[in-house]
């Protein structure tokens, strides 16, 4: 294994789905159900059995809109405010209307959702306004349940192939170029429609531990979806609205307020005092978190040591078996116990991820990107704050729409020269006798991201970042060297990470205002609703560099009153709660 082989094959299918994590499997199931004759291929650079952000499952739904607990209007309003007004509500509203049906479908797959003694869904309040958090008692089984459905529906699964570039022609998508991660063999997939569900750009900033893979996001999600969309000419929206999360320091996993909050846990400063009213993740909340850390009242902690033993035991039971189960190992190794002391928290590295913020490939309420036949869903598509249930639901929208799209089209023709050029680009690091290994290219890029792009954002620093990124690009293109197919996968990821870093800098420079709290805190500029109440759309310019435009926020479906729109900026506790 890992020896570089010289081979290339071609595959034809109706719908190619890239990414087998959360959105991808649901897109595949929906497309196949709607059009049973369609040849649907689900491709992943890992193994679909355990790929993606939820490889070990999830502790609950963070954003379920369940009749009787919340309405689509209320949810749409909440997310619009949490995302600081920059939101095309149609996609959020459609999600809010249809996610309940997806919950019932997941239930039919054997994934259970918590119910109270009356048999009603046991929904918890974590957000600032509404009630949307629904625990999943057997959340560790999600991937297995999905995999069973994929086998049953006879979806063609292709594991360990990494898509590197999309193919386009006739003004629409034509397929993708892929490389085997263990043999470097090429696979050109011709497809009538392509659905991307490639997750966040999680390896963009460097975690404070310095360990390249100690990221908040599953480290395999290195941003290929963003880079491929960019190179294909699709629009990417609001990339300056970074993802930054409050995490357990060093472990770099969620603290996790969505589990602990409803049971009485909270985020506290060094004195054990609560300083934010609401632990739901938003840029505005992260700004308060940052201010507390920087203002001499930190470190910031997760506080559970005031809770009863059975409550702590319940929190532990959930947090130590799903999503990031090594958390228990981490606390055991440190000798930390929720019962005895507060747990130190910190701020994550930056990334792109619409699952928690709003930086993603631009899509509408059908998950359509700006390229006909090309769809995006989940963390990489710009439906704000969409989390796991958003990935499932928007993945479903993509699958349904793609199943219709393919009925009227044949394969788009494309320039074969693109395949040859991509092959040369991909294999260049295998043709050298020595040079710079991909881990050093990646480390340097990500260290520069931390040095110059992390908020608070400063123009002069971001300009320096752009210069340094160009130097790294030169080194990468002229001197990167790999010894086997596995290292080649890392080399391709390093290239993606550098693309994302350049997009992060360019997008942040373009929006000359501050918005989304810490996510786009540009110290030289105030919030400016007059000039910047708009999306920013980044595309690849004719010179191969990012180019930008403003795009109107579509008229709201659900009106936001003037006194509501800053609700997420009013989270600081005014009279502090005394420590126990």
């Amino acid at each position: 294994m890992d020896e570089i082989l010289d081979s290339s094959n071609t595959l034809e299918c109706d719908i190619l789905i890239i990414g087998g994590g959360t959105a991808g499997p649901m897109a595949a199931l929906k497309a196949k159900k709607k059009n049973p004759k369609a040849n649907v291929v689900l491709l992943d650079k890992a193994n679909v059995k355990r790929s993606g952000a939820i490889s070990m499952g999830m502790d609950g739904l963070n954003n379920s809109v369940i009749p009787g607990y919340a309405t689509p209007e209320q949810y749409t309003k909440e997310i619009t405010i949490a995302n600081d007004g920059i939101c095309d509500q149609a996609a959020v509203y459609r999600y809010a209307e249809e996610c309940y049906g997806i919950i019932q479908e997941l239930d039919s797959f054997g994934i259970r959702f918590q119910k109270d003694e009356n048999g009603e869904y046991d929904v918890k309040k974590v957000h600032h306004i509404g009630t949307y958090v629904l625990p999943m008692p057997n959340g560790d089984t999600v991937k297995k349940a999905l995999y069973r459905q994929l086998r049953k529906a006879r979806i063609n699964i292709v594991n360990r192939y990494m898509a590197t570039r999309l193919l386009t022609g006739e003004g629409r998508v034509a397929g993708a170029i892929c490389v085997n991660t263990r043999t470097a063999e090429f696979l050109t997939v011709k497809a009538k429609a392509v659905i991307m569900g490639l997750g966040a750009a999680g390896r963009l900033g460097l975690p404070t531990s310095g360990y390249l893979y100690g990221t908040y996001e599953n480290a395999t999600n290195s941003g290929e979806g963003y880079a491929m969309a960019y190179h294909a000419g699709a629009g990417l929206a609001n990339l300056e609205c970074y993802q930054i999360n409050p995490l357990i320091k060093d472990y770099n996993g969620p603290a996790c307020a969505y589990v602990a909050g409803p049971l009485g846990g909270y985020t506290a400063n060094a004195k054990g005092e609560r300083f934010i009213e609401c632990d739901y993740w938003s840029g505005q909340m992260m700004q308060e978190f940052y201010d507390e850390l920087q203002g001499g009242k930190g470190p910031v902690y997760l506080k559970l040591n005031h809770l009863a033993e059975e409550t702590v035991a319940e929190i532990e039971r959930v947090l130590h078996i799903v999503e990031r189960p090594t958390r228990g190992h981490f606390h055991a190794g440190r000798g930390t116990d929720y019962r005895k002391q507060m747990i130190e928290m910190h701020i994550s590295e930056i990334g792109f991820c619409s699952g928690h913020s709003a930086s993603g490939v631009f899509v509408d309420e059908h998950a359509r990107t700006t390229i006909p036949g090309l769809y995006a869903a989940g963390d990489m598509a710009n439906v704000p704050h969409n989390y796991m249930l958003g990935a499932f639901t928007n993945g479903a929208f993509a699958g349904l729409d793609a199943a219709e799209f393919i009925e009227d089209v044949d394969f788009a023709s494309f320039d074969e020269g693109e395949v040859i050029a991509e092959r040369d680009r991909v294999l260049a690091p295998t043709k050298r006798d020595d040079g710079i290994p991909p881990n050093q290219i990646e480390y340097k890029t990500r260290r520069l991201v931390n040095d110059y792009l992390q908020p608070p954002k400063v123009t002069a620093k971001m300009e320096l970042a752009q210069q340094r990124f160009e130097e790294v690009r030169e080194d990468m293109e002229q001197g990167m060297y790999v010894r086997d197919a596995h290292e080649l996968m890392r080399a391709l990821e390093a290239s993606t990470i550098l693309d994302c870093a350049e997009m992060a800098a360019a997008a942040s420079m373009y929006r000359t205002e501050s918005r989304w709290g810490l996510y786009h805190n540009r110290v030289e500029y105030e919030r400016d609703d007059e000039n910047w109440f708009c999306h920013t759309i980044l595309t690849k310019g004719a010179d191969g560099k990012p180019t930008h435009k403003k795009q109107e926020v579509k008229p709201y479906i659900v009106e936001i009153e003037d006194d509501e729109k800053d609700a997420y900026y009013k989270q600081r506790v005014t009279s502090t709660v005394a420590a126990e």
Partner: protein
Amino acid sequence: MPLAQTATTVPVVVNDDLCIADKGCTVCVDVCPLDVLRIAVKDDGTKTAYMKYDECWYCMPCEADCPTDAVTVNLPYLLK
């Protein structure tokens, strides 16, 4: 320019006595999202899984899915 041979301690540990790679099992290698595990041939000619690349998200499918409980995921030293 030759590359340096810098050693790192790896987080995923496989108990050779329990590992059944010799019987053809490759479950941990198959499920790893970052594809960092491989099968090695030991001195006595039998096979075992091991962590070849220090690129671990300490996510645990390898440990959870191992049929003989041979795999333990420790935290990488830099962050433990």
